Every structure is written in C-alpha cells, then in structure tokens.
C-alpha cells in the first residue's frame, strides 16, 4: 500500500473530505487555503482562496456543486466547486469549528466556538443551489435554526439519517441528540470520560450509527436513534479523528500526543499512526505509519477503496487499499459469508 503524499499545505491539516463520488479530496489547514485534489493520483485540481484565518473545517455538498468552509476568521464561506468562486460569506461572532451538509444537501450546519461572552452554538443554514447556470443567488442571510449549547460547548456535529437529528459531540465528553427541526435536545449521553473533549464525529453510510473520537484515548460507536454505545475502541493516545470504512467492517482512528504536549513526548514512532480496528470485534488489526506528527483528520473513500489522513506535519497521505486489505477476514466472518 504505497501512499500518495500531498504536500500542498504549509501548516498543520485540520480536516479532509472526499466528495460522494470519491474522485475528489478537499483539505483545509491552518494556512488559510482550501485545496482540492484528484484522489486517484494526488494531482492538485485547484485552491480556494479568501479566508483570513486558519480554516478549521470543510464539507462538500452531496452533489459536489458547493463547498462549505468554516474558519477562525469567524466566517462560513460557500464556494462554487467548479470555478473556485466564493458564492457567499456568512459572518459569525466567533470562529467556526465544524460545517456539514445535511444528507440531501439542502441544509448546512455550522458549529461556532464559545468565546468573548458568546456561547457555543450550532447554526443551520438553508442552501440554495441556484439556477444551474452557475448563479447561486440568493442565499439565506440568517440561519433557519440556532441551537445554543448552555451546558458544554459543542466541538463537532453532524446529521443523522433523513436529516432528522443533529448529533453533537461536546467539550465535556458527552454526546447530544437534537431534533433537527425544532432544535430541542432529545438526549445527552456521557459517552466519553468527563471533561475530555470529543474531537470528531463521522457517520456510517446510512447514518444509523456514528463513531466518536475523544481525547480520552478511545473511539466509540453509537446508535443515532438512541445514542446507545455499541462498540468501544481503546487506544494508547488521545484521538483526533475516526472514520467508518464502507465495504469492510473496519474503523480507522487517528491521533497522537497533542501538539502542545509534543515537547514532553519522545519522537519515537508509535503514536503517529493510523490505527485500524475491526468494527464488530473491537480488535486492533493494523497500523499505518508515515506521519511525523499527530494525525488530525482521517477520511475514507465512499466506496471504501482508499483512505486519506492529514497530519500536524502538514501532509495529506492518500492510501489506496491493496488486495490483502479486502481479503482479510476473520474465520467467523468467512463462515457467515459461506452460509
């Protein structure tokens, strides 16, 4: 499994995302630039320039027409994927830590930071796909819904199946389920160790369950419907990101000692690896080395044929899986296949 090294960023990566077809990969970093890449060969398609601060988050609409980014410059920007034009800028009072399109692409959620007297919020914006001639006017000025997190600020959030729920991970290690229409909190579960924040939430393809990655060194699989904890994947390092692989029953975790603790950590290899666990049996089955800093983000190709990781070291590594990856199977799985 030879990785393709994408070295387009000058600073540490914050998030990477495949589009639904999996042919494109978008990456954002602290260096204010959004990059788009061909996932097959790692060639850079282009960049989207305009943000004034570190970009924390990126998402691409399900039809790969619009791209949304959230930044430390307190804005969410909407871009025309094809032309690179900035279509819309929404201003917020604080930095935007996470954006995600709803499954049908009609809405976008944005998680805003708690700072300077402003509480953390999750804002929902309606998205207009325009006239099909490259004209995306007009976009709604104000969010159609605003959820305020009074207890503990949300650090990440995503959409449940049918766009029915908004699931948020909090700074205190808990996970919330909100009604996506009314914004009411329906459930709150202390899924991770108290006061160790959740750094990532990614969903299964049908969005009935999701994986959380926490600073408490574990990743957990939760049910979207009732937030029941289904599986736990323990590791030996704080986790920044986790993803669920389609096609094979694995999960990929990424992490490593936080950047601010790196000086007190040995530079030894061993922590800056992508870890593969079996989704059902919770066993660790393999690791992929390469980064020389913590992994800040991992993403998997929607067809389950490749994955990419973005690190504190400023690199994105794209791996296309080998045959052995697909062939590997537990004896009990093989038995079930035969039946």
């Amino acid at each position, binding site marked *: 499994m030879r990785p393709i090294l994408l070295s387009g960023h000058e600073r540490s990566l914050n998030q990477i995302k495949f589009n*639904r077809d999996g*042919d494109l990969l978008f990456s954002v970093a602290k260096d204010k630039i959004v990059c788009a890449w*061909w996932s*097959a*060969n790692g060639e850079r398609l282009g960049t989207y320039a305009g943000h004034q601060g570190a970009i924390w988050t990126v998402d691409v*609409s*399900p*039809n*790969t*027409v619009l791209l949304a980014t959230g930044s430390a410059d307190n804005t969410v920007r909407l871009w025309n994927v094809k032309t690179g034009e900035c279509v819309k800028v929404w201003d917020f009072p604080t930095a935007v830590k996470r954006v995600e399109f709803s*499954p*049908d*692409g*009609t809405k976008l959620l944005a998680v805003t930071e708690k700072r300077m007297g402003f509480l953390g919020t999750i804002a929902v914006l309606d998205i207009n*796909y*325009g*006239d*099909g*001639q*490259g004209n995306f006017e007009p976009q709604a000025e104000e969010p159609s819904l605003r959820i305020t997190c009074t207890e503990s600020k949300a650090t990440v959030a995503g959409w449940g*199946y*049918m*766009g*029915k729920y908004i699931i948020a991970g909090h700074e205190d290690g808990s996970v919330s389920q909100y009604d996506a229409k009314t914004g009411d909190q329906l459930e709150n579960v202390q899924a991770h160790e108290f006061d160790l924040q959740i750094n990532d939430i990614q969903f299964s393809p*049908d*969005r*009935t*369950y999701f994986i959380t990655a926490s600073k408490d*060194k574990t990743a957990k699989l939760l*049910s979207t*419907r009732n937030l029941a904890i*289904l599986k736990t994947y323990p590791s*030996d390092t704080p986790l920044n990101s986790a993803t669920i692989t389609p096609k094979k029953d694995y999960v990929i975790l990424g992490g490593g000692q936080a950047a601010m603790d790196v000086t*007190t*950590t*040995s530079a*030894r290899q*061993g922590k800056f690896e992508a870890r593969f666990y079996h989704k*059902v*049996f919770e066993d660790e089955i393999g690791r992929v080395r390469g980064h020389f800093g913590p992994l800040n983000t991992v993403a998997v190709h929607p*067809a389950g*044929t490749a994955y990419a990781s973005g690190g504190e070291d400023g690199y994105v590594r794209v791996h296309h899986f080998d045959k052995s990856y697909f062939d590997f199977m*537990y*004896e*009990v*799985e093989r*038995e*079930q296949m035969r039946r």
Partner: protein
Amino acid sequence: MVNKLMDIERYGREGRVEEEYKPPTVEAFKEKEHLRSWMGDVHARDQFALYRGDKVGVFWNNKSNPPENVVDRAHWTQLFVQWSPKGTFLASVHPQGVQLWGGASFSKQRQFPHPFVQLVEFSPNENYLTTWSARPIQVEEGSQSSLSYEEDGKNIIVWDITTGKPLRSFVSYDLTAGASAEGEPKKKVQWPAFKWSSDEKYVARMLQGQSISIYELPRMNLLGKTSVKIDGVMDFEWSPATVAREGVKQYEQLLCFWTPEIGSSPARVGLMSVPSKEIVRTRNLFNVSDVKLHWQSQGTYVCVKVDRHSKSKKSMATNLEIFRVKEKGVPVEVVDSLKDTVINFSWEPNGGRFVVITTGEAAQGAAVAPKTSVAFFAPEKKGPSAGNFKLVRVVDKKNSNAIYWSPKGRFVVVATVHSQSSYDIDFWDMDFEGEKAEGEKDLAANLQLMKTVEHYGVTDVDWDPTGRYVVTSASSWTHSMENGWTLHTFAGQTLAEHPTDKFKQFLWRPRPATLLSKEEQKQVRKNLREYSKEFDEEDRYAVDIANTAVVETRKRVLSEWTAWLRQQKELLSEDKEVYGLPEDVDEPKMAKDAPPATEDKGEAVVEEIVEEIVEEHEEIIG
C-alpha cells in the same frame, strides 16, 4: 502483653476511672481470614500488586492472558504499596500512618499510626515493622492513639506487628547531625536505618563514623547496655542467613563492617560475631575510595567491593575481596583482574557465582555515558568445596547497568535501566545444557545468552518469586513516556505487554519459604519430566478452551451486530414511511447544473500519460 508504666497515668489518672465497675464486653469470636490463602491456588499462580493512577489492584498472573483481578481499589494508598517479605501483608502508606492488609479479601489487619510516615521496612520474618517520617512526632495529650509521650519528638518507630504497639522509638541521626554546609548536596536518608539480623533476634543501627548500636528483640534493649564503638565506621551489613562457621559451636549472628583510612592507619573490613561483639576476622586495605559489602544469600561468602585509587588519585580500579565465611579461619580470596571500576555486583542466590558490571572512566565533558562491560564469574570445580573464582566471560561494549538474578539462581537478567538511549534486556543462562566451550571445562558454569529484548524506557525488572517470569516496567515516577509493564518468561520470551497510563508500581507478592524438605525437593526435581507432562496437557487443554471461547464470542458478537443492522434498516424504512419520505431521501439533491443521474459506471479508470524528455539535441545543419 506488656503494660508500660505510663499506662498507669494514661488509664488510671483521676477522672479516668469510673466509680462503678462495669464488666468488659467480650466480643463474639469472629473467624479471621487465612493470611496465606493465596498459596492454595490450584494452578500455583502468583499474585502481584499493581499501582497505577490512583488505583491499587491485586491480580493473579495468567501468563499471556489478561491478569485476573482479585481486588482493585481507588486511593488505596497515598505514597506507595509494599508487600511484607513473606507476602502475608500488603502495606499502604497514608498521612495517618501505615495500614496492613491481608487475607483472601484484603481486609484491614493492623494499623501503625505514625503521622506523615514516609518509609516503611519489615523485619525478615514479618514480626516487626520500622517506620520513618522526616517530621518529628507530636503527641497530643489525651489522644486516643497508641502513641505515648515516649514517642514525642521521634522520627523512627519500631513496631511489634502482632500487637500493633510501638516497641521503641528513635530520633533519626541524619537530622540531629545538624544542617549540612551550604552548597553540599542534601544528605540522603539512611534507609533502612535499622538493619535486622536474619533471625530477627537483633536489630542494629549505625552512627556513621562512630558506633553501631545493637538492640535485642523482643525487648528492644541495647545489647550489653552500650553501643559498639568503631572509629570511622562507614557501613555494615548483617549476614542474610544464620551461618555456622567451622569450629564455632555456640550461636552467633555475623555482621560485616568497614572503616576508611584515618591518618596513617589503613582502611579495615571486619567481621563481628553477635552477641559476643567479638571481631572474628579483619582485613586491612590501602588506597581505598569506597567499599561496598555484598553478602551471598546463605552467608557463605561476603564480597567486599573495594574501589581503589592509584597514589596520584588519578585512576581508579576495583578489587573484589571475597571472604569464605564458612571455611576454617575465613580465608580471603582477592579478585583483582578487573581493570575498570565496578558499578554493580550481584551474587547468585543460593549459589557461588556472581556477575559484575564494570565501566571505564567517563571522558571529560562527554555527553554519553561510557560503555560498560558485563563479567561473569564462577568457582572452579575442585573437590567438594568450591574452588577459586574465575572469570567465565566478559561481554564488552554494553550499556547495561543492572543485574537481576532469578530468585532460584541459574538464570540472570542483565539490563540497561533508567537510560534515555538504551533499553536492552539480556536473558542469560549460567547452566546451559549444551556444548561447553573447551576453555571453560573446569568451571561450574556454562554461559549462554538466551535472548535480548528491548523495553523502551524500562525502569524496573522484577522476577516472580518462583523464578518463572520476569516483568519489566516503566514507571511514571521516573518518566512519563510509554508507562506500563511487560511480562516475559525466564528465557526472555515476551508473553504480554500492558501499556498502562500513569503506571507506578508492579510488585510480585513474595512467597514464604517452601515447606518441603530437601529430600522432597530432590524428588520433585527428579520427577520433573513426569509432572511437566501433566502440566503441559493442562496448558494445552486451557488453550483449547480459550480458543473455543474466543470463537464462540466472536460468533455471538457478529450475529448480534448483523441483527442490529437489520433492525435499524427496518426502523429506518418505517420512519421514512411515517414521514412520507421517499426511500432515497438521503441521496444528494440534484442541482440543476449537476450531471444527470448516471447508471453505476463501475470503477473509473484514470489513465495518466507522463511524458518525459529524455534528451535534447540541437544540431545546426548547414
């Protein structure tokens, strides 16, 4: 039971005795837990204590399988935990004092309320306990604790474990000696402050440079009412076993001490017999910088490691002066073939072999420590008694600094601990059952390196009491990198790794001495093959069971998962029906400029054409 005179004041003072006699209530008899219950394990497994984070747990060692928990308690101790020498008690240390735990459920056994206690030492047979605190004890009037005015202002208490009462208390010398001069490194606490003779009949303390005070148990009275004056005494060690010297009939305990060169008189190593306080053997030494005393576990030998400087005091070398205690007249053998200084020495338990680690002098200003050499010594085979000690082999260019013998002898682990750059652990066999090198024919050893493993950041190496397993660990008391512990067999095969956050202590529970007689032990050794067949069978069976169990759990887990997925799918389509949403509601909304929905094209093949200019020529024709 002894009542102190002070007790009259304490219990009998006016107002403390009630006018009317009330018969004391006799509490109903409660069966106590068996303090050695762990020895009855069917599989003869060993226990260990594990201190990590705020939690202390006791576990059974299950080889490569996860250890089986016995108890696990949060905040069980404030400073550290410690087993008693025969494994009966586990001591936890708190600001209020020391608490002993024991029995199958680790219930409270005894309390020793020494406030702000910092160090704890058991006597060899677990009858007494010494505790130390830097803060002098303050006894308040009328307090209910078992401390009396006698303990006021003291630092050290010697306790009787059976009664839980203090026997006698002392002020530690280091503190009364006054503050050391400015700039001098702070003096380390001399610990153990009180050293026990192997049979616990005596306990002794040294006032450095002046004398050794020997106390008799159980009364804790000063032997012969005076301390033994030894000018300049630097250190002493009791023989770890009761030795019968040749030609000596009466009971005695031996202790070995040394004094440095004072003026023109030479340095001296002496062997003292107790209770007579007679010095039965001395040896004079010259050009001595430092001396370390190492008794062999049966008291057969005592090795005096003498660091000597040349006349100019520029170069250093080490001599080993080995006293053959059990032989007539206590002959001394000198091993002076070592050119470098010895930084570590260790006798084989119950054996006559030893390992030393030597190092050259550190180059001035060098960033890395100098390389070390590991040397193995064994006695020559010569008649019934052991012959002279001869070098078996030297292994050069090592970084090793620590020696850990198996408690049963024969196997020895040589490791590099507390190092930033090197962490190899060598497993040696001293009696390899294979071809022997020609040159070593006459030696009672056949040395073989079995395995070398690495354990990053290793700080401690611990043999289990049976000599079957070795645990290497990296404690967060020393550094915070990759803390945890790893279990190996005696031969260095790694059985299990346990990375553990905030790992502090791993302690095997010691075992009491075997109850089998010498003959019975011999019998067991003879029939070992038969026994091991049985055990191998058991092991295989256990593995089979475990494998089946794993497969069964996996089957169950997988079928549960598929069932859950199916249920979710059904619920999801139900939901869609209820909300009147189409089945493909989560599909991307088609924007007008998006490409029309296409059939599944299958995998797209991206073809790349790379053109490369191999060579460029420019020719002018004309």
